[in-house]
């Protein structure tokens, strides 16, 4: 503290250079906090669970070889073949799947001609989906085989048994989401009986606000015009092996083609490709700006050291030891950084308010502002260590001999 007030007075006298550096620190703080927050938000978004055992799940798309009226039977046969592969935990047909980017969505009604009570994604499958997708039932009951309808048309128009995600149940029954069990949901003109509630099952679109609001209908659907989409869950650590064996097994049937096969990790990577790229760009901007600021502080400190060589020598001659000199430059930087951070805090809040309005994101929480303060402070101190150490090596004899 013994250097604090003289440094403050000295900075006040110097004006331009400290003001410019302070502004640089402020701008860096402002941008850094907002980019860090946006990266954090994206990261949280990318880490949302689909509800599936992603590490051990893949999906496979294969063609139908039989006549249109036999596709259901053929699909069941394909599923039997896959379930017979060593290491398969479960397999189920799903016309759409979490994060794949294609699927169906619908509005929900509690009365046939009533108002919409919510909207969400539509998935359909059979009783094997619970085990295959690793779903967690949290209310009501799961499908029994007799619940499952089979159709070679679009199943969404059939009155069916359904389970819904907790997110959808909460949207429809905000006071007590469990009340949805046993009710009838109307969508696509048909009544659907809600058997139970599952904890999580994301639908096809990660960017959609209703990605967690999903209805899973007990419909085994196979349309002749579309290939069969099948999700497969394997025993832990056997994903690659099972994928290879599944392909080998299916291709034993003449004419069978594997149109597509992808792990859920690949599906996730693809779904969040843009978010990941944006995060990388934001990270690069943040890191780049932090480096530029650190270099700015470093350069300013070095310039100060070379400009003040004789002054440093004089201070040494008059009794400052090496640590006093290091501390002088560290405190000087801390003062500049602190003023910069205070200005930056105000700027960050103003900038964030604009982002909140323009990009519909939440306000930056206090923790980010505090973390930003610490980061900028440490960054400044790290940048000034080398010049400050160099300054401490200035010989006190410079005071008499000149720089």
């Amino acid at each position, binding site marked *: 503290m013994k250097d604090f007030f003289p440094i403050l*007075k*000295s900075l006040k006298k110097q004006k331009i250079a400290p003001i410019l550096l302070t502004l640089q620190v402020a701008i860096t703080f402002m941008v850094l906090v907002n980019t860090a927050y946006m990266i954090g938000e994206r990261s949280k978004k990318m880490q949302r669970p689909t509800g599936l055992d992603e590490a051990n799940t893949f999906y496979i798309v294969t063609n139908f070889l039989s006549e249109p009226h036999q596709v259901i039977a053929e699909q069941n046969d394909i599923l039997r073949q896959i379930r017979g592969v060593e290491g398969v935990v479960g397999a189920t047909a799903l016309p759409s799947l979490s994060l794949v980017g294609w699927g169906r969505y619908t509005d929900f009604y509690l009365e046939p001609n009533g108002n919409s009570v919510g909207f969400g994604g539509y998935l359909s499958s059979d009783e094997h989906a619970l085990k295959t997708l690793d779903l967690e039932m949290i209310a009501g009951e799961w499908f029994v085989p007799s619940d499952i309808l089979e159709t070679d048309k679009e199943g969404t128009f059939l009155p069916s048994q359904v389970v819904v995600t907790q997110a959808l149940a909460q949207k429809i029954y905000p006071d007590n989401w469990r009340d949805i069990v046993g009710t009838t949901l109307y969508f696509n003109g048909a009544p659907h009986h809600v058997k139970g509630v599952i904890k999580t099952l994301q639908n096809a679109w990660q960017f959609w606000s209703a990605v967690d609001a999903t209805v899973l209908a007990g419909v085994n659907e196979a349309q002749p015009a579309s290939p069969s989409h099948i999700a497969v869950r394997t025993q832990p650590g056997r994903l690659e092996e099972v994928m290879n064996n599944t392909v080998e097994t299916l291709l034993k049937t003449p004419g069978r083609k594997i149109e597509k096969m992808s792990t859920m990790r690949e599906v996730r990577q693809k779904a969040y490709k843009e978010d990941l790229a944006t995060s990388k760009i934001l990270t690069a901007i943040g890191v780049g700006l932090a480096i530029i600021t650190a270099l700015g502080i470093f350069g300013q400190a070095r310039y100060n050291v070379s400009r003040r060589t004789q*002054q440093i020598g004089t201070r040494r001659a008059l*009794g400052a*030891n*090496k640590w006093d000199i290091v501390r002088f430059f560290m405190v000087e930087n801390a003062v500049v950084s602190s003023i910069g951070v205070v200005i930056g805090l105000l700027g960050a809040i103003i900038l964030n308010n604009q982002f909140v309005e323009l990009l519909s994101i939440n306000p930056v929480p206090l923790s980010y502002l505090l973390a930003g303060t610490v980061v900028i402070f440490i960054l400044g101190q790290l940048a000034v260590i080398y010049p400050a150490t160099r300054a401490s090596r200035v010989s006190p004899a410079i*005071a*008499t001999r000149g720089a």
Partner: protein
Amino acid sequence: MLIMKNLAKVFYADRIKTQALHPFDLQVEQGEFVSIIGSSGSGKTTFLNIAGLLEEHSEGVYLLGGQDVTTMKDKQKSAFRNEKIGFVFQSFNLIPELNLYDNVDMPLRYRKFTAAERDKRIMQALEQVGLAGRKHHYPNQLSGGQQQRVAIARAIAGSPAMILADEPTGNLDSKMAQGIMTLLKDINAQGTSIIMVTHDNEQAAQANRIIQIKDGHLSELKTLEKAIA
């Protein structure tokens, strides 16, 4: 107060040995005013730097205030320098961004004085050099002579046993120079030893003793005429 025995300084530049100061003995008692004269490059500044603990000596023993400074570490040496020695430089070496008060305060901040003690010392020192009324002024608002007075106030504020003055009037006109000499003599009269390096024989003659340095050899002169001769 200051005892140097068989003290010498050798520089090595590109493995070439330069004997800046040949071995010499010197003793300065408390309250003495000693002038160091010699031509440029003779070793005056080297001597002053060694005496002020700004440079290491190569050989010999240096006792200051009864303490051997040879083995002192940087931290100890800095504190010792701060407490025992006041410096007056040819170019004043004031901090331009600090006002007179803060300039005088600077070495005191390296000591564990209370704020009140520092304030008392600063004001006393500024009063002694006649600049107490201008304590909020900055160095660039003063004449050269006034700046040197501030430097002297800075040197005496810590009550050192010895002041080392390096050409203190070198950048001043004769009128201002005489004012500074009068001030230094006043300070010396109060018991502070002064060792002053100077080119000016008239000023050197105002000291109690005159040491001449010629090609790194120190010799004490009985009278100034010998030096001139």
